[in-house]
């Protein structure tokens, strides 16, 4: 399936960019005239994926995070969040609820939240190379959609 629209942003792994990434994804999704609940689901999943890059991928340095947004004919949205950080040794284990390698400020629920808010969550990672998280969500068809 070929995308009918695509956009990409790239930013430094500063926590101030968490809000930027959420808003950018919500703005891109706006052309589908999503419901408020759909917009919030997208923002929440993006926040989890991007925060993971900022917190885990680059624990002691600033690195680059990229987010690619794609829209498909069947009204589905694909969001790919990519980093070139430390990577994940065991992806299955990382996706378990409450599994965390982080501090007391982390609860190990990020992947669980992404999974419950999106239709599909794909994780590809290579230790020492980086991680790509792909989120997919089909949106309801509404009259106001621009595409």
């Amino acid at each position, binding site marked *: 399936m070929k995308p009918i629209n695509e956009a990409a942003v790239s930013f430094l792994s500063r926590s101030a960019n968490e*809000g930027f990434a959420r808003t950018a994804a919500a703005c891109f999704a706006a052309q589908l005239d999503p419901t408020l*609940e759909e917009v*919030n*689901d997208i923002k929440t999943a993006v*926040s*989890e994926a991007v*925060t993971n890059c900022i917190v885990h991928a680059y624990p002691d340095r600033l690195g680059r995070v990229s987010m690619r947004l794609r829209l498909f004919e069947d009204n589905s949205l694909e969001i790919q969040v990519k980093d070139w950080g430390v990577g994940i040794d065991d992806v299955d284990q990382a996706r378990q609820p409450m599994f965390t390698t982080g501090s*007391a400020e982390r609860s190990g629920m990020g992947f669980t939240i992404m999974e419950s808010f999106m239709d599909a969550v794909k994780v590809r990672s290579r230790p020492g190379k980086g991680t790509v998280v792909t989120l997919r969500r089909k949106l309801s068809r509404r009259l106001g959609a621009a595409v």
Partner: protein
Amino acid sequence: MPVTCTGGGRVLRAALSGEVDHHGARAIMEELSRQIDLELPRELTLDLAGVTFMDSSGIAVLLRAYRQVGELGGSLTVVHVPDQAARVLRAAGVDRLIKFA
């Protein structure tokens, strides 16, 4: 202020506001923790009406307050949870641990 506290006599009410994400959570967690240490509440009510966004970072804030008040023998109630935050808390199963009113 992301945390505004009122009350006394060991009944504390804390109103959180703004975006409770990783960027904002540390300041909120520290301020809340400081207030709990100061007031030693028997009852803590967290009012989330002013929260415009919450993700898993907010879960850690709530769980920390829950434990801290629990250690004092007190109880925590969370009120006025906006829809987006409620969905996050439900997805994480936090509603089975913490009392929502």
